[in-house]
């Protein structure tokens, strides 16, 4: 059976959920061979094996942290040459997309980004994507070279499928470009204890209607009652009420959780582009004419300062 390379997104050996979803998709088109780089790469093997990786190729070198992106491309290319896979799958993070893109041009292959589903086809893997603010669904494939495909989080279930997961060291030679962009400083983002926005099963977002940074507390409380991530519209971010890293929309993050709760968000096209693929959509807004209500499964026309706290209380009561 053909092998499929899966690029592993991990933090010091802790594999992030989108990679486990990739393993589910990879098994539809072949045998997953995982590529884990950097500190803790060896520690990823157990969980990757549990989810179907027949092999785990690992490499660590200071270059991976001291320079931007390119050393990881060199390593993924080394894995590609060692394996001759039927496809290369990479999580659709900002960095993942850059790694995949550079690999694709190097190996003379087409690239598909932000796939939301993947299946085997007669002419190679077929990827489902959303276009035009998710108003269209397209099916595409790579017609030249080995398909390189990046996949959005929450695109497939995480499924256990025990496999050998034998760890093998990957030999990597860094090219001249690998050391082109130096990382001269790094400030880790402080953990909020909440799930990562793009990976979360539930996202609770606030917009212009939240009317001030000090009021985002009620959005956070609702999120915490549901174990959700907090998002914000561009209006709220531009006003300085919430960090840009939490922005949902065309120029922020694209999310497709099981449940999306929009509070005080009118639903401009740019916001819709980032959340329209959410499975269930709920909105709370004073303005009954707000375009967000065209998308919702359940909407409450009302003052979020009354509705949201009541909802939070009710959730807490029900959860006991």
């Amino acid at each position, binding site marked *: 059976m053909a092998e499929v390379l899966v690029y592993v997104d991990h933090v010091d050996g802790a594999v992030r959920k989108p990679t486990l979803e990739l393993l589910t998709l990879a098994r539809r088109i072949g045998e997953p061979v995982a590529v884990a780089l950097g500190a803790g790469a060896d520690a990823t093997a157990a969980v990757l094996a549990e989810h179907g990786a027949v092999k785990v190729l690992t490499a660590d070198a200071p270059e991976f942290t001291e320079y931007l992106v390119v050393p990881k491309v060199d390593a993924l290319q080394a894995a590609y040459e060692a394996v001759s896979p039927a496809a290369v799958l990479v999580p659709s993070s900002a960095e993942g997309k850059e790694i995949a893109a550079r690999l694709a041009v190097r190996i003379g292959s087409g690239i598909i980004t932000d796939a939301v589903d993947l299946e085997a086809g007669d002419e190679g893997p077929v990827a489902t994507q959303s276009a035009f603010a998710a108003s269209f669904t397209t099916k595409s494939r790579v017609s030249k070279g080995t398909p390189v495909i990046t996949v959005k989080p929450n695109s497939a279930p995480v499924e256990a499928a025990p496999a050998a997961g034998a760890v093998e060291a990957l030999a990597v030679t860094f090219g001249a470009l690998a050391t082109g962009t130096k990382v001269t400083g790094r400030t880790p983002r402080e953990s909020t204890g909440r799930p990562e926005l793009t990976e979360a099963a539930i996202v609770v977002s606030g917009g212009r209607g939240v009317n001030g940074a000090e009021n985002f507390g009620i959005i956070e409380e609702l999120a915490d009652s549901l174990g959700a991530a907090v998002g914000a519209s561009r209006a709220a971010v531009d006003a300085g009420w919430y960090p840009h890293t939490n922005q949902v929309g065309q120029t922020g993050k694209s999310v497709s959780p099981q449940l999306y709760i929009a509070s005080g968000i009118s639903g401009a096209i740019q916001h819709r*582009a980032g959340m329209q693929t959410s499975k269930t959509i709920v909105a709370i807004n004073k303005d009954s004419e707000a375009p967000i209500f065209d998308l919702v499964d359940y909407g409450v026309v009302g003052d979020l300062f009354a509705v949201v706290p009541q909802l939070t209380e009710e959730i807490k009561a029900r959860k006991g």
Partner: protein
Amino acid sequence: MSLRIVVCVKYVPDATGDRQFTEDLTVNRDDVDGLLSELDEYAVEQALQISENSDDDVEITVLTVGPEDAKDALRKALSMGADKAIHVEDDDLHGTDVMGTSLVLAKAIEKAGYDLVITGMASTDGTMGVLPAILAERLGVPQATLLSEVKVEDGTVTGRRDGDTASEQLAASLPALVSVTDQSGEARYPSFKGIMAAKKKPVESWDLEDLEIEADEVGLEGSWTAVDSAAQRPARTAGTIVKDEGEGGKQLAEFLAGQKFI
């Protein structure tokens, strides 16, 4: 010293319009107004700021690949303050994917001559966000991408990249490629004087022959990916909408419980 900056911009269909696919599954550009991609305005702005903060002689060239109408995007950038423009236009470019577009841009950038290439973080139509990295790979120069702050000094570009898990400071020697996010600083509006001055600025037109690119390397034929189908998402079935009369939060909780979210 002089610094040559090439800013890559894209002419995109207005996102607030009714965007559709044509029969060959390319984007229908006929029925929708186009404009300079908003995210590329940030790239033009950063080029202008680098120029304003530099003691060097800085020349800013804006470059686009696209149909005749794409000149509108160049004119907007020129009226913001760029010095000159290059328009790559060729009938054979219809349906070109990101690999083909990056090839055309790379050849045009090399022909124009450059020390620094600046792009937006993504186009507002395709929203792939991979072109800057591919372009850096093709040009063989360092990529300092997704920057929310940019500075150029003594032949080095530095900047801040805000990632999911960390905020990184980057440094690369010129020549280099930079992409900037919408956090890099509001783009200026063209002044009346800028709009008048833009009319006199040079706009060069190049075709594939000028760039020594064969027709089969680009366009739908040269595309490295194929779109097999495009279907409009079925309209969402009308949801339940209630007016809050004191119990809105409780009613919503009831709905969420029914959907097993609580």
